[in-house]
């Protein structure tokens, strides 16, 4: 009993000691580094440019809308495009960069009532949802390079909702917005381009009305339970992007036959 106690104590001590050691090393490295010239945010960086879109119209975010075709696998609400050149197919890429999501505000809304921080929160959450949806199929990397795709995505048509009721919860640190952001008529536009050349590999416009009834009313909406509908909508949109990628990777026809014929475990 005593020896087990000593072992457990020793194990805990060792773990704490390791953490402490790393903290000390990091602190030491920090002390020895020369101070860097101050990195300031670029003017206008915090305030993202306001992009507007007429209700029900394309935003102009994609390079070209003419080649998009209805995709039955994703339902009638989705229009997709895949580069027909086999040398430029999705199969040729193994990693992805997810660009910051752009947000287009409906021209029907008074944009002055939608703060930058609100749009930022919406964009951040959708980016996070996209990374979660695609990362195990396409490892997310930071820099462009060979075999790396760039995922550009936009939320198109966010609108202005009613007044947000103040919260009486002292534990809630997130600042509420004056007016909620409504996702009722939002659609998603996304494009996968070669990270080096910028050439379009695939694209999709998803007009599925997943945001019906969903509202965002805080700068940090993910903490507030009542906006779960919005979180779900973003996760579902991101999930549909992954569905699109999955369907394009499915082996069919000649490719399936060739893969089956070719595949042999090593040693057979």
């Amino acid at each position, binding site marked *: 009993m005593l020896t087990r106690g000593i072992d457990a104590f020793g194990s805990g001590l060792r773990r704490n000691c390791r953490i402490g050691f790393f903290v000390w090393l990091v602190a030491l490295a920090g002390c020895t580094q020369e101070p860097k010239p101050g990195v300031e945010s670029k003017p206008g960086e915090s305030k993202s440019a306001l992009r507007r879109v007429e209700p029900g119209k394309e935003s102009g975010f994609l390079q070209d809308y003419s080649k998009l075709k209805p995709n039955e696998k994703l339902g009638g609400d989705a229009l997709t495009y895949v580069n027909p050149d086999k040398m430029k197919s999705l199969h040729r890429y193994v990693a992805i960069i997810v660009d910051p999501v752009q947000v287009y505000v409906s021209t029907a809304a008074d944009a002055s009532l939608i703060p930058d921080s609100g749009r930022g929160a919406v964009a951040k959450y959708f980016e996070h949802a996209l990374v979660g949806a695609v990362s195990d199929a396409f*490892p997310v990397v930071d820099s462009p390079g060979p*075999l790396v795709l760039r995922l550009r995505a936009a939320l198109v048509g966010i609108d202005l909702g009613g007044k947000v009721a103040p919260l009486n919860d002292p534990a809630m640190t997130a600042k509420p917005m004056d007016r909620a952001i409504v996702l009722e008529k939002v659609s998603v536009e996304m494009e996968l381009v070669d990270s080096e050349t910028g050439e379009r590999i695939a694209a999709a416009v998803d007009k599925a009305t997943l945001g019906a009834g969903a509202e965002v009313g805080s700068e940090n909406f993910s903490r507030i339970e009542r906006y779960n509908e919005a979180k779900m909508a973003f996760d579902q949109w991101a999930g549909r992007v992954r569905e699109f990628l999955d369907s394009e990777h499915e082996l069919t026809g000649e490719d399936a036959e060739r893969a089956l014929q070719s595949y*042999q475990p090593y040693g057979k």
Partner: protein
Amino acid sequence: MKKFMVPVVLLAAGAALCFAADPSKMKTIQGYADSDICARLMLGPISPERIECSQSTHKQGAAPQIVRLTDNLVFEVNKTKMLKDYVGKFVEATGEPKEKDGRIKLESVKEIDRPNIPPGAPGHELMDARNFRATGDRAKTFEKVRHELAMMPYISEFDFISFTMVGDDVILTGWTVRITNRSTAYNLVKNIEGVNRITNNIEVLPMGSFDMQIRAGARAALQRMLSRYFWGSGSDIKIIVKNGKIILLGRVATKADSDIANIQCNAVPNAFHVFNLLKVAPSEDKKKG
């Protein structure tokens, strides 16, 4: 000078204390010291051919690893120098194994004789070639596993997933650039009737920019010279790139094609070494002739 010596000595002593192995997590495992290439390819029982593979690939620069005899799980070791003299031999290794990560923090290694593993022990399976033959119902299971793995959607030229059957157990091996392939392969095989236990030795490869450049360079070079082995969504030639090393796998029709692939990959910038493990499988027409 003295000013610097004191903190350096203290740092070294602190590091030694902190990183010393935890005695409560120490285990001794019986294993086969293999090269990382042969361990992932799992050539079958520990035969003279397998030992030759382990030793020759290790000499060419493949890192040594331990294959645990009880379940064939591959362990990466923290101190490769400690294991390098035992590659191709059976060993008893003491250290802190982490099954989930497939790593072991080695404390000591010693060679053991083959007869020391009794015939009834689970580890003996690895040495008996009869356990690797798939006949009757096992042959059907083998084909089902092969079919499922062949149809995996996210397999590219840069992934190679292989498997071995030991009785009703399946050992998944190989390399992939996508985490999803590791779990997908496991889940697909898990649902196949007749499969008992699965050991997942599929390694997820690092995605460093150098390796990515090598992958792209090797594929471009091979596609230029051997385009018939590449089709829309896949290829007969697999290009595995790990820390600057290229492993060529798959089948080609002639020895000349294998040599061309080797030469082309050796010319890829930043590639340190090419392990050419391409198999020459004559085409059906030649077989008939």
